[in-house]
């Protein structure tokens, strides 16, 4: 994708990404609101992936991968923040232990959503790491 000519180079007034940025946002909002982990993870990965690609296509960055990793990091941060609101104190063991509440019976809904956002962030970072390799072997 990167530095390789894509749709945008051939057709000056086309881009593949906006549609997927929009879809990604819609799916992630649905997933996070209803607390359905696979949907929020998939939606968020699509969302940040398409943003990173669109930004680099528009020429604001050379390659999308650093930005994608950054957005992934941001999601991890947001997810941790959300989960930690459910910790009863800011003691280290409480903060680490809070994640267990997401898997308790019944699970704590807020923690579940925090975890889903963290997982999406990690998936984004992984994609940013393997992406460059894939892109070169692919072509």
């Amino acid at each position, binding site marked *: 994708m990167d530095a390789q000519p894509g*749709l945008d180079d*051939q057709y000056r007034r086309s*881009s593949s990404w*906006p*549609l997927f940025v929009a879809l990604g946002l819609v799916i992630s*909002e649905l997933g996070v609101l209803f607390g*359905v*982990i*696979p949907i929020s993870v998939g939606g968020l990965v699509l969302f940040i992936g398409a943003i990173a690609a669109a930004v680099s296509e528009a020429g604001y960055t050379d390659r999308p991968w650093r930005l994608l990793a950054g957005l992934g990091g941001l999601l991890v941060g947001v997810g941790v923040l959300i989960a930690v609101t459910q910790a009863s104190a800011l003691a280290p063991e409480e903060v680490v232990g809070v994640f267990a509440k997401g898997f308790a019976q019944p699970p704590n809904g807020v923690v579940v959503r925090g975890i889903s956002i963290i997982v999406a962030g990690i998936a984004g970072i992984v994609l940013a790491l393997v992406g460059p390799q894939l892109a070169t072997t692919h072509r």
Partner: protein
Amino acid sequence: MDLSAQLALTVLMGVFLAAVAMALSRLEDWRTYTPLTSGGGVAGGESGYITREKPLGLTRWLTTVDHKDIGILYGVFAVISFAWGGLAVLLIRTELMTPAMDVLEGLGGEAFYNGLMTSHGITMLFLFGTPVIASLSNYFIPLLIGADDMAFPRINAIAFWLLPPAALLIWAGFFLDPMTGGAIESAQTSWTMYTPLSIMQTNPGVDLFLLGLHLSGVSATLGAINFLVTIFSERNEEVNWANLDIFSWTILTQSALILFAFPLLGSAIVMLLLDRNFATTFFTVQGGSPILWQHLFWFFGHPEVYILVLPPMGVISLIIPKFSGRKLFGFKFVVYSTLAIGVLSFGVWAHHMFTTGIDPRIRLSFMAVSLAIAIPSAVKTFNWITTMWNGDIRLTAPMLFSVGFVSNFIIGGVTGVFLSSIPVDQLLHDTYYVVGHFHYIVMGAIAFAGFAAMYYWYPIVSGRMYQKTLARWHFWTWMIGSNITFFAMLLLGYDGMPRRYATYGDQGAPFSVLIQNLHIIASVGAFIMAIGTIIWLYNFVVSWYEGPAAGPDPWDLREYGMESREFEWHADRLETAITDGGSDDQSDD
């Protein structure tokens, strides 16, 4: 949710993402499939890579970042929404012809009525009103200010693509109700989503509805940022603040209003979602209070009505001079009044809350500012009338709709001034008088202006002329229909008919022969407008394919000394198309 369902969803999501990745790699590798040298010397290439501006077929529409294409997409979307909102209201008006619940009984009775009413309001404001304006501004602002495109073409496309899913979510309850055996229903919160009712309705259809509304707000905000940057920084050197056209001025002001109003709505919706799903208490009686919702909602809501009306005012200020053969009277004051309305509109919101028991001193100040906002509105009205005064008037369809706008706006505005007087409002609040007031404006003025603009610019977008007789039929059905319907509503309000009722003669809604007759009259007007709308749709679709070529100057603007940038652009485009033997920009629109 149990494990197997989670697993199934994970697999589904994986398949979906894989499909997306495949589609993307097809698109992005397009070049490897299409030899660069093919294309038979199509015009428009700037660098070696670019052989054409856009791919063909469906892909073109899914991937376009061209402001003109996006304008057309917004337009099509707005028409679909208008059809949905229109069909909903025809069912409503049919039901209201009799006092009892009968027509809709089999479809779900009062609950269905409430769902239709909620959907009608939200659809018309957020899925028709805002997008139809975005359609006009996307297509024409760059042409009017001499820009190549919007400042951020991709963000422009993102803003559009958020809307179709938003619409599906807002309407979702209607589709899911039969599919889930009534577990998910359409939202019945009314467009104002007042708490505590909107918290008490546990139906997940309301959550979907709120998400859709949130997304449409994100879309509007993205669009507004784009227009602000475009109008500030993408103008051609010849276009400066002194000669910026009036439509661009109103879009500029509207975008600023959106930027301050919509993020607030978005946050309030998130708070409402939290109240509904996470047991927060922002808007509960024991917590932040339901009145807090009303403050937040109307702090957005009143500016929203001006977000909707300012660009139509700009359209009217643009069109009336063209067919009066005179320059817009007091151009500067029209601009100043636009800016004044923009500022004042944030200081009037509590006129929607006069009967809620808020502090009387607060009410008084809001009454004063509400009365004051009538002044800049009147400045505009007088300027339109003076522009036409002694002019060389040509009653084309766009001009007819513009004159209709002025007439309806006067009635809508005057009734608004009545309502902003506290004692009058205490009698008329939550009656049909309010419904009559704002429909004179949203239908009688805003929709009229939208259609005026569509007729005016149709020759540029389609290259063809519509059938003028049919356009006149459309105008007269609408002018007569809207005045029948909405005047009857004003009278219903005086007669004490409360708004939002599916039935009357019981539960606090009075019955009298007069009330029923007025309801019947209002419904007849609605059906007359429906006929006009069908005429319009037929006319535009048929003329798109078969209308006579419009030529470079369809309105004889040159003869009247009324040249304007977008029609000059249109003439240029026709000329290059002839000398080049047709660029692909021509062949497909």
